[in-house]
């Protein structure tokens, strides 16, 4: 962490907001109901679009008869796939760095064939959504059902027809890794444990559903798109490409966004169709997904089956890991980030906390007639963590070793960094040992074990589960750019000082409710030297912010934050230089603190910023000759030293299993994680807690259930169970701080750590509770039925 000219670092500037739990500036507005989500954006002559979606998992479209619907009350247009294709070109979700990844061209509205239940193939635009839905019911469609590929286990069988004939089979991507001498390690091992883990397909459920409002102003040549989305510049680029518009003709605005979790960073057919319809109809068109179509059309994730084995020495050293991952991704690889990323992450991350040197992994990604899957919070991490942590616990129990001691023995030591993980990932500085030590103390591990033992004697079955994990954050261009995706890995911040001393910061990372704008305001206030209430942050507007990647992969604070810090420092230098000229003082002797120019040494105020602003903006005639103030500064930042800033942590779960009903009660959860500099403890801790709850959702509750014909069986909030407050445990969070030296602020991401480790901690705790009964679960979500089956009771 470098010191600036005034000799002060990021953390110890006199008016530093860093490391303080300041409330985020936008919270009050949202709590007062004054948020502006897409559905709140007013527009004259607005058309509401509703989509006709496939009721079949796979079928040929023989005919779509729209004449009657076109005559229905309020209907503005009924548009088929073929008609829309004249305006919007298809896409293919592949990238160069996933060698061999294949998919097929996907249209905004399916033309000849529908490939999952929920795929849109016809659109109705009407004066109201209700009228559009009325008209949908009047469209007559003739389907020719085709065989559906539903089970990923048989998707590659020679007898299974390929979903896309031109691909020849249903294998979209395969990756293999073989490091060291895996066979020898297993041959020489004292103990080998093996398990097959199943991960239920689930999805991110946002409070605000996917929503988009597109308005084509022909006179301006401008398509303005209000979008509930994470990456406005990516959307702008893709709209230009597929609607044949120049860059300046598309403005994407992501004002308030009600949650995203990775769901809102992909290209969706219905959203592209909405923009194309606005062009076609020359009027604003709005699409707001309702909850039923969200379950059918939002991306799903996590549909994996992993068979894995781990080799141990008699003393409990992990010697080798060998795993085979199979995942089903739906009928298309999702554009533009692709659906190969989750499996790829599983290969990169599994066993990542540990120091074994022999590792073999194979991942196969297959196509199937279900909703497409793609990146959702903690992409691949919960799978990788469960596989390794489940095997570590299995090994510990077979060897009669304590699971915490087993981890202490095997993690990469804190003094070994920088180094590479066994999969080849580059690790700058992790802190597994410190995190384990802190967790052990925080949870009172030994006392908890004693309590568990005494309760077991009374027939109460409690379990303690641990999960060490690593998390990918702050991605460089290695994530997407190198593969050809036009997704910026660089972000920028422009900061302007106004006459009264107010500061406006435009930032290219975005806010979805996690507090990005709050973090940026803290950093800008600290860097410039003004009170935080003087800072206004603008985000989510391609026309008003620097170009950048947006918020995903836990990059907002670490990358956007560093850009804001650098821009703030640059602005402060500009301001101090002008102040020096006016005060006839050496700029190096001056500083900006708390909204005033001060003497750096003594802290004595020399001039308030409002006076400086008055002179600069209104009495420039009194400035010394040759002085041209620049009260705007822009800086960009992209990580270059490492492809990713890995973070680490460890979680623990304490549960009680009712061995008659199979119900699991979550008693307590702990997480120690290391995201480097903690910019705002309140926001970081709530990110961790929210992430843990989302991870618990996958572990115990959430599951997109399909039948053998590819019908989604539980697509509503009544039967798709999101985790709710009543079932959640208290969650204690603590930190180890290992700042990245790639940036001055030293912050890594914290958005996905909770989700990465929670499922493994909970499932390990359940298995710990069941151990005396010789029962074991390995299928998520762990429903009461799964537990009862493991116990042999049903």
């Amino acid at each position: 962490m470098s010191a600036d000219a005034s000799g002060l670092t990021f953390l110890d500037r006199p008016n530093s907001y860093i490391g303080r739990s300041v409330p985020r500036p936008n919270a009050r507005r949202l709590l007062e109901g004054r948020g502006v989500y897409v559905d709140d954006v007013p527009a004259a002559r607005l058309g509401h679009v509703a989509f006709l979606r496939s009721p079949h998992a796979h079928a040929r479209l023989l005919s779509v008869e729209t004449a009657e619907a076109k005559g229905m009350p309020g209907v503005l247009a009924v548009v088929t796939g073929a008609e829309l294709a004249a305006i919007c070109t298809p896409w293919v979700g592949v990238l160069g760095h996933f060698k061999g990844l294949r998919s097929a061209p996907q249209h905004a509205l399916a033309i000849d064939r529908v490939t999952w239940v929920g795929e849109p193939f016809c659109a109705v635009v009407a004066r109201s959504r209700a009228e559009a839905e009325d008209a949908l019911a009047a469209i007559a469609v003739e389907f020719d059902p085709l065989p559906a590929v539903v089970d990923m286990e048989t998707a590659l069988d020679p007898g299974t027809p390929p979903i896309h004939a031109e691909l020849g089979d249903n294998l979209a991507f395969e990756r293999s890794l073989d490091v060291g001498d895996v066979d020898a390690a297993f041959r020489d091992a004292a103990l080998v444990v093996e398990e097959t883990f199943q991960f239920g397909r689930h999805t991110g459920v946002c409070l605000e559903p996917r929503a988009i409002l597109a308005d084509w102003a022909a006179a301006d040549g401008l398509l303005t798109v209000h979008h509930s989305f994470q990456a406005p510049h990516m959307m702008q680029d893709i709209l230009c490409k597929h609607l044949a518009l120049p860059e300046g003709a598309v403005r994407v605005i992501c004002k308030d966004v009600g949650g995203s979790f990775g769901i809102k960073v992909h290209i969706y057919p219905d959203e592209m169709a909405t923009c194309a319809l606005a062009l076609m109809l020359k009027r604003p068109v709005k699409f707001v997904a309702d909850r039923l179509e969200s379950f059918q059309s939002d991306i799903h994730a996590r549909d994996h089956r992993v068979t894995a084995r781990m080799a141990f020495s008699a003393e409990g050293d992990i010697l080798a890991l060998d795993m085979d991952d199979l995942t089903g991704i739906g009928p298309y690889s999702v554009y533009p980030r692709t659906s190969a990323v989750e499996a790829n992450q599983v290969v990169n991350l599994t066993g990542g906390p540990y120091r074994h040197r022999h590792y073999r992994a194979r991942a196969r990604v297959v196509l199937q007639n279900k909703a497409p899957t793609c990146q959702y919070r903690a992409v691949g991490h919960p799978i990788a963590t469960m596989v390794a942590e489940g095997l570590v616990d299995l090994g510990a129990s077979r060897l009669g070793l304590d699971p915490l001691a087993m981890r202490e023995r095997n993690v990469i030591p804190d003094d070994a960094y920088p180094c590479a993980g066994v999969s080849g990932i580059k690790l700058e500085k992790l802190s597994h040992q410190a995190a384990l030590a802190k967790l052990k103390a925080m949870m009172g591990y030994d006392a908890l074990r004693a309590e568990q033992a005494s309760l077991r004697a009374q027939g109460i079955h409690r379990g303690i589960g641990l999960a060490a994990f690593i998390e990918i954050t702050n991605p460089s261009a290695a994530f997407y750019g190198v593969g050809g995706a036009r997704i910026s890995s660089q972000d920028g911040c422009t900061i302007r000082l106004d006459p009264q001393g107010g500061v406006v910061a435009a930032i290219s990372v975005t806010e979805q409710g996690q507090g990005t704008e709050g973090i940026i305001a803290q950093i800008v206030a600290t860097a410039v030297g003004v009170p935080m209430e003087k800072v206004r942050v603008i985000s989510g507007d391609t026309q008003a912010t620097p170009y950048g990647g947006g918020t995903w992969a836990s990059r907002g604070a670490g990358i956007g934050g560093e850009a804001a810090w650098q821009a703030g420092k640059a602005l402060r230098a500009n301001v101090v230089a002008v102040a020096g000229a006016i005060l006839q003082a050496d700029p190096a002797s001056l500083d900006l603190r708390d909204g005033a120019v001060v003497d750096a040494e003594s802290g004595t105020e020399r001039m308030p910023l409002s006076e400086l602003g008055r002179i600069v903006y209104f009495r420039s005639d009194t400035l010394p000759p040759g002085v041209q103030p620049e009260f705007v500064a822009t800086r960009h930042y992209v990580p270059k030293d490492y492809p990713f800033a890995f973070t680490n942590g460890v979680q623990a779960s304490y549960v009680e299993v009712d061995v008659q009903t199979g119900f699991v009660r979550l008693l307590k959860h702990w997480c120690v994680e290391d995201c480097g500099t903690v910019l705002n403890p309140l926001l970081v801790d709530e990110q961790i807690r929210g992430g843990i709850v989302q991870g618990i959702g996958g572990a115990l509750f959430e599951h997109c259930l399909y039948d053998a014909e590819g019908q989604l069986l539980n697509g509503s909030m009544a039967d798709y169970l999101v985790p709710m407050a009543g079932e959640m445990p208290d969650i204690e969070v603590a930190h180890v701080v290992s700042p990245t030296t790639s940036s001055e602020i030293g912050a890594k991401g914290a958005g996905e750590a909770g989700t990465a480790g929670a499922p493994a901690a909970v499932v390990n705790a359940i298995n710990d509770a069941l151990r005396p009964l010789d029962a074991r679960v390995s299928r998520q979500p762990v429903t009461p039925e799964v537990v009862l089956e493991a116990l042999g009771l049903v």
Partner: protein
Amino acid sequence: MKAPDFAYARPASLDEALALLAAHGEDAVPLAGGQSLVTALNMRLSAPGLLVDLNAIPGLAGVSEADGVVRIGAMTRHRDVGAAPVVRARLPLLAAALPHIAHPAIRNRGTIGGSVALADPATEWPACCLALGATVVVRGPEAERRIAAEEFFLGLYTTALEPGEIVTAVEIPLPPADAVWGFEELARRHGDYALAGLAATARRSGGGLTAVRLAFFGVGDRPVLARAAAAAIEAGDVQAAQAALADELDPPGDPAMRAATRLHLARVILGRVAGTLLAGASMAGASMAGDGDGA
């Protein structure tokens, strides 16, 4: 999704409401608390031409006691059922069931009459009505009918209500001084529909139990009185009661849970409720008049 267009009427009297239902036939649907109906409208699972809102009709809500019977007006909100002093004092089974009904916002709006008329087999009030020997009072265009709960719930969302009839009240006889009760429900999350639930009443009889009524919910197409299991409990044989459920319950399998698992859960909660009832039977002062958890 958005509901298709419908007409809306807000009659000020029961007679006016009944006249509207008679005039519009099956195209008209009464609206009580709207907690199930409005969802069904928005999902386009139901598309009536006319909603007849019962909320402005005086006299349909409220809990009263007379002549050994507690009368709960059909438009009494779930929350108000459980909060009524006479319910808390004399019908603690209902008070115990209340927190299991969905969430506070739904309990504040939904009504007991709406719940009984909808007859969702996984909900609490119909089973409680069975366990307590309630009578469902309905009004049609011609006359009032009084239907025993055992004759009222006929199948999945199916009741003895005739077209044009409205549920006006649920009447529950005050339990005798030696009554005991038990209630158990298993749901994945607090407020979810029951995977298996049981509302039970009985009378103490010389350290044992008599007049046992076991009303299961969530394990069939309607709330089910398990008579053979009840007889086994009266005989003091809980295991036999659990075994008897195999013939008495025919739980549905669904994507969330197999039928066999639901049956298993029904047996587990029967064991727990039987324990509660038997503990109540062996304790003086633990009765329907008490305010404990049934034991």
